[in-house]
């Protein structure tokens, strides 16, 4: 187990290193730089941009900048964000928890909802409701997160006024419990927009997995021993059918992250997604690289966690290892 973990961590470091290096070079090859945007104020001469470029070392050769970046990064300094006027570490610390809250809520909703729905559909395959809900899931799969987000923004938020149209908190948010309720109120729509697709994907896989174990010998044996039906479903069938879904989670996390970028942007949720878009638009070199580090590391970590979860769920794999 320890060897497995160490091997995967070494792989993760390699993957993150490659992603970061590629991002470092590619963003500098894109047209413009952090101080290239011309303003509409004719009194702001181009010399000012040149001075800022010099002051922050962006006029050095890429190789020099890369060595400087590596040297500082190893000390934990990811540089200064020219767009946000704070260190990249501070920018990530400001936004990452917000994304984790949004994605965590969406993944929780998606997993719980998808597993429960899929398990029910697979357990009762001939029920009309199960078949209907299975067909309805196709819609959830087909509608991209950003389209759903826009529909939610238009309907429940703008037209009905039931939910806020944007942000994570009201501009003038109350304190205490009022503040918490305000946060939850703002969380509903973006989390829902992200979770719906996930529910559909998970339910589809869970249904297939459940159908695969429903008539297996160990299920029949459990029933023959007089194990109550609910226990047969939860302890025997569900646990054994979870493996494909847990594997799936590691695979689809990057796509959830991609969806979060758009959903955050649509709902002005101040998370990593909005940060990435802002960083790329502003050619904020240091911040783009910082986002690449967090993005690639989180995907690698999620894959690792998914593998560990599979090991937990399937004792046969543990014994093979």
């Amino acid at each position, binding site marked *: 187990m320890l060897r497995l973990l160490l091997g995967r961590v070494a792989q993760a470091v390699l993957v993150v290193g490659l992603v970061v290096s590629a991002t470092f070079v590619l963003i500098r090859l894109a*047209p*413009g730089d952090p101080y*290239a945007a011309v303003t509409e104020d*004719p*009194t*702001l001469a181009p010399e*000012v941009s040149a001075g800022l470029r010099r*002051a922050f070392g962006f006029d050095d050769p890429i190789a020099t900048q890369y060595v400087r970046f590596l040297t500082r990064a190893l000390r934990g300094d990811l540089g200064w964000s020219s767009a946000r006027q704070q260190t990249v570490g501070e920018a990530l610390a400001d936004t990452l928890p917000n994304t984790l809250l949004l994605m965590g809520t969406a993944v929780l909703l998606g997993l719980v909802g998808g597993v429960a729905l899929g398990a029910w559909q697979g357990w009762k395959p001939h029920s009309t409701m199960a078949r209907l809900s299975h067909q309805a899931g196709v819609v959830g799969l087909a509608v991209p997160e950003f389209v759903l987000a826009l529909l939610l923004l238009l309907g429940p938020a703008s037209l009905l006024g039931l939910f*806020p149209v944007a942000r994570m908190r009201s501009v003038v948010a109350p304190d205490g419990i009022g503040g918490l309720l305000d946060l939850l109120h703002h969380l509903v729509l973006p989390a829902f927009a992200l979770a719906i697709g996930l529910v559909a994907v998970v339910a589809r896989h869970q249904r297939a997995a459940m159908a695969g174990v429903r008539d297996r010998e160990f299920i029949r044996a459990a029933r023959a021993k007089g194990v109550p039906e609910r226990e047969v479903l939860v302890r025997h069938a569900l646990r054994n059918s979870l493996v494909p879904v847990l594997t799936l989670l590691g695979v689809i996390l990057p796509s959830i992250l991609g969806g979060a970028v758009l959903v955050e942007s649509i709902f002005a949720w*101040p998370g990593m997604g909005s940060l990435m878009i802002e960083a790329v638009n502003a050619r904020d070199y240091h911040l783009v690289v910082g986002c690449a580090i967090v993005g690639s590391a989180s995907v690698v970590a999620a894959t690792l966690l998914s593998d560990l979860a599979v090991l937990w769920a399937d004792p046969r794999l543990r014994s093979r290892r």
Partner: protein
Amino acid sequence: MRRHLLLAAVIVLASACAGEELRPGPEGGTVVIGQVGDAQDLLPPFHSDIAGRIVAELVFDPLAELGPSLNVVGDSAFAPRLARSWRWSPDSLTITFALDPEARWHDGRPVRAQDVAFAYRTLKDPANAAPRAGDLANVDSVVAIDSLTASFHFARRYAEQFYHATRVVPLPSHRLDSIAPGQSLRTHREALAPVGSGRFRFVSWAREVAIDLAAVPDHYRGRAKLDRVILTKVDAVPGLAQVVAGEIDVWEPLASHEVPATSASEHVRVVTGPGYLYSFLGLNARDPQDTLRPHPLFGDRALRRALTMAVDRDAVRRAAMDSLAFPGLGPFVRAQTTADTTIEQIPFDRTVAEALLDSLGWTARERDGTRRRGAQRLAFTILFPSPALPRMRAAVALQEQLRQVGVSVTIRGLDPRALGPAVQSGRFDAVAWTWQTAPSPTALRGSWMSRSIPGAGATNYWAYSNPAFDRAVTDGIAALDLETRRASLRRAYQLIVDDAPAIWLFEARNAAAVHRRFDTPPWRSDAWWLTLGDWTIAPDQRLARDARPATP
């Protein structure tokens, strides 16, 4: 499902009911200002965007403030702020400011003459790359005579000496002078959480979310009537929805397509005033392939005039801005004291334009109607910054109008960070551009005077050059009285309009959506936020958010 709906309903209700106690009396309330971009810098020497400027000008008081007449010649249009009074030396080469002894920094320390001298040094320090350091080119030194007296010494007399002196906004030297020599003040922690001297103090800055300011209770000019100012960053689409829903109190500038929804809102009213931006199609006089040679099309003055004549600029204005713009008249806006609305324009006349093009040899036609002269096609590309919707609409209208006289136009929107290098290097044919004007006409030096003149033409990306125009602008800027200045600049404006280095498209009017509960002083379009301290809300009009204090 039912339980989920119930939970959502509870959250909605509880959130809506979480109110605070409202305070009676003339003082109190919160204004929420929506901005499409977050501030970049909050210190007066560095701000280069509108959000940063609002914060800097609310948190820091200048020595004196330019009044709504925007007359920057002499000192008659200025009102005292940190400086209680000032006097000129007999030779007019020194201005001495007497500071208000009651003025305090927000940490309680008195504002002193050393803070004025420190601000001057900060602006001049190359390590800071201060955007407006050029304003101080004629200031030799700033000296603290005693703790409450600071003198500005100038190298020569000129019309805007006083204006330039007021561009040095005192900074709290006791908090900022710890920075090492050669290091930029921009990244100093105090620059990001500034301690100022204005009627509002800085409270907090959640990047890309909001900047929170609070009234200073014992300010030397009197307490601001509002308790709190919040600048919040919001994208255009959710921003408009929040304005209409009454969640944002001020939304400025208001785009023309946003006016109907805003006007229909029960929460906000639309305020309009003169604008300070003029938009034009800049025609590059240099060949994009070899910038030392003239442009194959726009190097020809007669062709530029013919193209201008072929454009119905009023239709372009309507297409781009609807009613929120005036016709463009030249490189100025009507609100400037040196504006002249009598400048004779090149008239729109498609028939004459076609005859002119014929006379210039552009007679042959391709199958799509594009004119040719020998092997050369009458075709060019218009660049515009891709997020700028009005300029995109203007470019589309121009494309169609020019097509009707046999000119083929390709439109290309570029990300502003890609557009900047392309335009600055001269690698373009034509660009739909906007300049923001200042009260002073000196910006003409950078944006329209010949690039060959030292210190001029830095932002003259279209490389316009006419020595007679240069002389007229130089005379106008040097004039010591407003009438002489106006006469010289009128000459300059007429020359540049006749030369047609650009097609003057429109001058945007300033429009803003303001929540109806505010009672505001006369709207000052150039800097409406300067009056925020005097905005009031009747106690019976206040909302729950008006009672929530700023929390650091």
